[in-house]
């Protein structure tokens, strides 16, 4: 069975928190090389690992992982701000 590619925000979240791959790997219980594979989107994590990552970053799984290409967080934020300004 051919699996779909999963896109994620792991790299941007890790960099934002100032963590190295090794530090993140220790927190989620994998090898640092596996973090590299996840960040390059060369490997789809299991549901268990996806939940461990989402619990570590304290974001819902669907915010970190998607089957579509993910837009930058700043773009979503800009849309939210502009829509709230229109209402006001």
């Amino acid at each position, binding site marked *: 069975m051919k699996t779909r590619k999963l896109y994620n925000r792991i790299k941007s979240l890790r960099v934002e928190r100032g963590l*190295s*791959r*090794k530090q993140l790997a220790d927190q989620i*219980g*994998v*090898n*640092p*090389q*596996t973090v*590299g*594979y996840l960040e390059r989107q060369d*490997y789809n*994590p*299991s549901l*268990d*690992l996806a939940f461990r990552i989402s619990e570590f970053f304290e974001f819902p799984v669907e915010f970190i992982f998607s089957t579509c290409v993910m837009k930058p967080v700043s773009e979503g934020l800009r849309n939210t701000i502009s829509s709230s300004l229109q209402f006001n």
Partner: protein
Amino acid sequence: MKNLKLLTVINLAALLVMNIAFYFVFRGRVASHLYDGAGIASLVVVAVTFIPLFRKSGIWKLTHAKADKLDERELALTHWALSESYGWFAVICLVIMLVFSFTGRMNICPQFTISMPLVASLIYLSHVLPGVMIAWKHGIQEQSE
């Protein structure tokens, strides 16, 4: 960055050359130090390429570690490498047996027998073949941050 594919080719080619050279040495067909030298030089190449290819790249640890020491990606990769190498090793052994059987039966080369270096090479191959599969699939090993 290390080119693991190139190292794999050099390692396996040196193993083949070593077997050919030692075959002539052990059979005593050619009394020449050239074959001794070629066999020993190939053995040195195998040993020298083994270190960066399997030890320093971490592939040896990956294929020989216990399952509880690996994460889910490494387990999947090791499982794939072991099943692939099992198939390849069976084919290699059967081809060698077929060649011996064929050459003996057809009286092409009746003195062609399984030598000690060939057995040692097969033991070595059975251990490194899963690593060879991983090195070949990934080609370039990325240094971890």
